[in-house]
C-alpha cells in the first residue's frame, strides 16, 4: 500500500489545494502545496531507504481491467527508487522556488497542477504494468500542457504548449500501437497480461520485436528528447516558468530514458542490440549538436534547455552501449542531471526576475550586486559541465567508460561534448553575471532566504554524492546489473 499512498498523497493534496478558498497570491495554497510535497518526500524517503534490491519490498498487484489484462501493479527496484527519489526531492524545491510565479494568476491551480504532475510521475516510475505505465505516461501531458499554456512567462506560451502537446501525443500514440501490439501477442500465447514480468517471457519473431521496439523507442526519444525529435524543447523551456521547466526536463523527460531502460532493453533485447548503431549515432549527434546550439544561444532559459539535449544524449548513449558501466552511469546521470539542471534553471529564473530579460546580451554585471546569486548560478553551471567533486562528474565518467568500452571512436566523440559543455557554461556565466554593472540593475537585491533555501538541498546533494557516489551506486548497480544481464541473455536467444 505504501506505493499507492505515495501516488495518492500528492493527488489528494492537489484536489485540496485546488479547492482552498482565497484570492490569487494568497499564501495558504502555497503552504498547503509545500506541506503536501514534503509529506510525499517523507513517504518517498521511507520507500527509498527501506527498499531491498529485488524490488519486492513494496510490491503490490491488483487485477484492474481483466479483459485487457491490465493490473494496478506497483513496485520499485534500484532504477525506480532513483527516479522516485529524484521526483520527491525536486517537487518541494520547485514549489519553494516558484513561490511568487503565479501571484497574479490562478495561484491554487498552478500549485495543484504541480502536485498532479508529481503524482503522475511517481505512478510512471512505480508502474509494473505496461498498460498502467502508458496511461499515466500520457496523462502527464494534460497538467504539463496547462502549466506551460496557462502559466508560462514567454510571449509564445500558447503555441509552445500546443507544440509540446502535439509532439508528445504523436510519440505517445505511436507507442499506443506498440502497446496494443503487445496485447495481441500476449493474448496469442494464452491469457493476456500486461505485467512486465509476464511480457518478458513472450516469444516474438524478429520482425515483431523490432516493430514493437520502434514504437516504444520513438515515444521515448521524443520525450527524452534526442535529435531529431528535440525541436519542441527550446520553445517549451523558453516559454514556461523555470519551475515548470524543472518539472518537465528534470522529472518528466526522465520517463523517456527510464522507459528505454525498462522497456526497450528488458522487453526487446534483441531489437535493442539491432538498433544500437543508429541510436548511438543519434545520441552522439545530440551531444555535440545540443552543445553547439547552446553555445550560440542568447536566451538563458532556452540555453539551459539545450544543454539538456546534450545531456540526454549522454544518458541515451550510456543506455545503449549496453554494458554495466554505461547503464549504471546513465541511471546515475539521470539523477544528477535532475539536480544540476534544476539548480541552473531555478538560479536562471532568479536572475531573469531581477534583470527583466532572459537575453544574455542584455544582462551582465550582476556579480557585484548579487554575489550569492552569482555563486548559485556558477554552482549550477559547474554541476552541468561535470566538475570533479560534484556528482554529475561521477556519472559522466561512468558513461564515458562505457562508451570507450563500446568503441573507442564513440568515446572520443562523446568527449568533445564535455569540452563544449565547459565552453557554453562559462560563456553564459561570463555574459550573464560578470562585466560592468548596468544602470538597470540599480534597485536589484541579492537572493533572499527562501530562494537560497530552495536550492541549498540540491547543492548539498550534489556535493555529497560527488564525494561519496557509493551511496547512490550501491542502490543503482544491482538493478542495472539485472537489466544488462536480462538484455544480454535475451539478445543471445
Amino acid at each position, binding site marked *: 500500500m505504501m506505493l499507492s499512498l505515495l501516488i495518492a498523497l500528492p493527488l489528494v493534496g492537489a484536489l485540496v489545494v485546488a479547492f482552498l478558498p482565497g484570492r490569487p497570491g494568497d499564501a495558504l495554497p502555497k503552504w498547503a502545496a509545500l506541506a503536501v510535497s514534503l509529506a510525499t518526500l517523507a513517504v518517498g524517503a521511507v520507500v527509498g531507504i527501506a527498499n531491498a534490491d529485488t524490488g519486492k519490498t513494496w510490491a503490490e498487484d491488483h487485477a484492474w481491467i481483466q479483459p485487457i489484462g491490465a493490473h494496478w501493479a506497483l513496485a520499485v527496484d534500484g532504477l525506480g527508487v532513483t527516479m522516485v527519489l529524484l521526483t520527491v526531492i525536486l517537487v518541494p524545491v520547485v514549489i519553494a522556488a516558484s513561490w511568487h510565479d503565479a501571484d497574479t494568476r490562478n495561484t491554487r491551480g498552478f500549485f495543484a497542477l504541480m502536485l498532479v504532475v508529481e503524482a503522475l510521475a511517481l505512478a510512471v516510475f512505480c508502474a509494473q504494468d505496461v498498460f498502467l505505465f502508458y496511461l499515466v505516461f500520457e496523462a502527464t501531458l494534460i497538467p504539463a500542457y496547462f502549466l506551460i499554456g496557462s502559466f508560462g512567462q514567454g510571449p509564445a506560451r500558447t503555441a509552445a504548449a500546443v507544440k509540446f502537446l502535439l509532439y508528445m501525443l504523436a510519440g505517445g*500514440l505511436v507507442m499506443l500501437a506498440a502497446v496494443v501490439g503487445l496485447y495481441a501477442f500476449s*493474448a496469442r500465447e494464452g491469457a493476456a497480461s500486461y505485467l512486465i514480468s509476464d511480457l518478458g517471457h513472450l516469444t516474438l519473431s524478429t520482425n515483431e520485436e523490432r516493430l514493437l521496439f520502434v514504437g516504444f523507442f520513438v515515444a521515448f526519444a521524443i520525450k527524452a528528447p534526442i535529435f531529431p525529435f528535440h525541436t519542441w524543447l527550446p520553445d517549451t523551456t523558453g516559454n514556461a516558468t523555470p519551475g515548470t521547466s524543472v518539472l518537465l526536463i528534470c522529472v518528466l523527460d526522465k520517463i523517456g530514458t527510464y522507459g528505454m531502460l525498462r522497456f526497450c532493453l528488458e522487453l526487446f533485447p534483441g531489437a535493442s542490440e539491432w538498433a544500437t548503431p543508429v541510436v548511438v549515432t543519434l545520441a552522439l549527434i545530440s551531444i555535440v549538436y545540443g552543445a553547439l546550439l547552446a553555445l550560440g544561444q542568447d536566451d538563458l532559459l532556452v540555453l539551459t534547455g539545450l544543454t539538456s539535449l546534450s545531456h540526454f544524449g549522454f544518458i541515451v548513449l550510456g543506455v545503449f552501449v549496453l554494458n554495466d558501466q554505461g547503464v549504471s552511469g546513465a541511471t546515475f546521470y539521470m539523477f544528477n542531471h535532475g539536480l544540476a539542471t534544476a539548480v541552473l534553471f531555478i538560479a536562471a529564473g532568479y536572475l531573469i526576475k531581477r534583470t527583466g530579460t532572459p537575453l544574455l546580451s542584455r544582462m551582465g554585471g550582476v556579480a557585484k550586486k548579487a554575489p550569492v546569486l552569482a555563486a548559485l548560478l556558477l554552482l549550477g553551471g559547474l554541476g552541468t559541465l561535470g566538475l570533479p567533486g560534484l556528482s554529475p562528474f561521477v556519472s559522466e565518467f561512468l558513461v564515458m567508460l562505457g562508451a570507450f568500452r563500446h568503441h573507442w571512436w564513440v568515446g572520443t566523440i562523446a568527449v568533445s561534448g564535455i569540452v563544449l559543455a565547459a565552453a557554453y557554461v562559462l560563456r553564459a556565466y561570463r555574459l550573464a553575471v560578470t562585466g560592468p554593472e548596468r544602470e538597470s540593475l540599480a534597485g536589484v537585491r541579492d537572493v533572499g532566504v527562501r530562494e537560497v533555501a530552495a536550492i541549498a538541498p540540491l547543492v548539498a546533494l550534489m556535493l555529497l554524492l560527488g564525494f561519496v557516489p557509493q551511496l547512490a551506486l550501491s542502490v543503482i548497480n544491482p538493478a542495472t546489473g539485472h537489466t544488462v544481464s536480462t538484455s544480454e541473455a535475451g539478445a543471445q536467444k
Partner: protein
Amino acid sequence: MTTFHSPHLGYDLIWPLLLVLGAACVGIVVEAFVPRAWRYLTQVLLTLATLGIAFGGTIYVATGLDARGGGAARGSVVAEGAVAVDGPAVFAWGLLLLVAFLGVLLFAERHLDGGVSAFAGQAAALPGTDAERRVGERGLEHTEVYPLLLFAVGGMLLFAAANDLLTLFVALEVLSLPLYLLTGLARRRRLLSQEAAMKYFLLGAFSSGFLLYGIALVYGYAGTVQFGGIADAIANTPGQRGLLLAGIGLLSVGLLFKVGAVPFQAWTPDVYQGAPTPVTAFMAAGTKVAAFVAMLRLFSVALGGERWSWLPVLWAVALLTMVIGAVLAVAQSDVKRMLAYSSIAHTGFVLTGILGAGAALGKDQIGATQAVLFYLVTYGFMTLGAFAVLTLVRDAAGESGEMRGWAGLARRSPLVAGVFSLFLLSLAGLPFTAGFTGKWVVFASAMGGGAWPVVVAAVLTSAMAAFFYIRVIVLMYFSEPAADGPTVAVPSILTSATIAVTAVATVVLGVVPGPVLDLAAHAGDFIR
C-alpha cells in the same frame, strides 16, 4: 393441399421493439386528441416511460437468452427468420434506448430559448413570413417530434436486429424518414435546417436505392434474403460470384452512407450543422450504433464466407475515412461542424475495429464484435455529451458554434468549459477517458486481425485529430474573451442531467471499463 401456418413471432423476445413502435402510434393519437396545453407534458412523459420500460424489458430479454449451438452465440431467430434477438442485438438495444432517453431529455429542454423548445413552432409557416412571426408570438411548438423520435428509435432497434435483407431495408427506412423530418425542424436558422433536411433526404433516398439494388442482386445469387441462407449459398456454390460481389458492393454503399464513411460522408457536416442540436446529438449517436451493429451482422453472418472480398475494401475505407475526417476537421471554424467531421474520423475508428472480424483469436482475446460494441458505448456517450454542451453556448441568434466566440469561455464559465474539455479530451482519446479505452479496444481487435498498418495509420490520424480538439481547449482557456462573444445559458434539470450522466460515463468508462467490456464480451457472437 397447402396448409396455413400462423407465423411464430416470438412476442416474448421482441416486445420491447413493438412497445416502442406502438407508443409512437399512441403519440400520434395524443397529438390529435389531447389539448395543446397538455401535449408537451403528455408526450414527454409517454416517451420517457416507453423508453424506460423498453430498457427494462431489454434487460429482461437479455437475461433470458438461450445458449445456442454450443458456441459463443446466445439468442433466437424469431419472426420467421426476419429478426435475430441475440447478444449483440440486445446490447445494441440497451445502448440505443439509453441514447434515446438522454436524447429525449435534450428534446424536452425549454429553458435555453426563453420557454420554447429547439424545434420550429410550426414547420409549415415559411421562414421570414408573417405567419412565422405569429407562430412565434403564440408560442406554438411541435410536439410531434416525440413520436417521430420513437419511430426512429423503433427503426434503429429493428435495424440492429434485422436478420434478412428486406427487414434490413424496411428498418433503415423506418429509422431514416423521421430523422429527415426532424432535421428540418430547427427553430433558429430555419433555412439552413431545411436545406440540411433536403440534402439528407435526397442523398439518403439515393443510398437506399443502392441498398435495394444490392439486395436484389444478392437475392439473385443466393435465392433467399435471409442471412443464414446467403451464408449457405456462399459456402455451397463456388465460382460464379459476379452477382454476389456486385451485390455486396451496393449493400456496402447503402450501409457506409448511413454511418458516414468516406466516400459517402459528404452529407454529414451539413446535416449535423443544420439539424437542431438535440436531433444532431441523438442522430449522431443512435444512427451509428444501429448501423454498425447491422453492418457487423450482415458482414459476419451472411457474408462471413466471402470475407476476403470485402475485407480489403474495408481496409481502404477505414483508412480514408479516418484521414479525410481528421484533415477536414482541422480546417473548420465552427464547433458543431468540427464535431461533425470528427464523427467521420470516429466512423473510421469503428471500421478499424470491424477489420478484426473473423480473425482466429486466443482465449479471452478481444474480438471485433466486442470491440465495436464497446466503442459504440463510449462514442455514444461522449458525442451526446459534447452536443449537449453545445446547446448551452448561445448568442442573440440562438446557438453559437462560431469558434471565435468561444475564446476565453473558461473565464466566464469554468464549469461548462471544463466539462466540454473533458468530452474533447475523450474524443481525442486521452487516457482515463472513455475515448482512450474505446480506441484501445478497436485497435486491439484490428491488431488481432493482422491489420497493423491500419492501426499505425489510425494512431497517426489520432495525433492529427488531437490538434483540432486541443485547439478548442486552447481557445477556451488561453485566449482573451471576445467582447461580443456568446453567453452561457443556464439549462433546466433536463440538459444538466444529460450532461452529468454522459460526463460521468465518460470518466467511468475510462477508469474502470472492465464491467462494460465484460458485458460486451458476454454479448457473444451473432446467431445464424
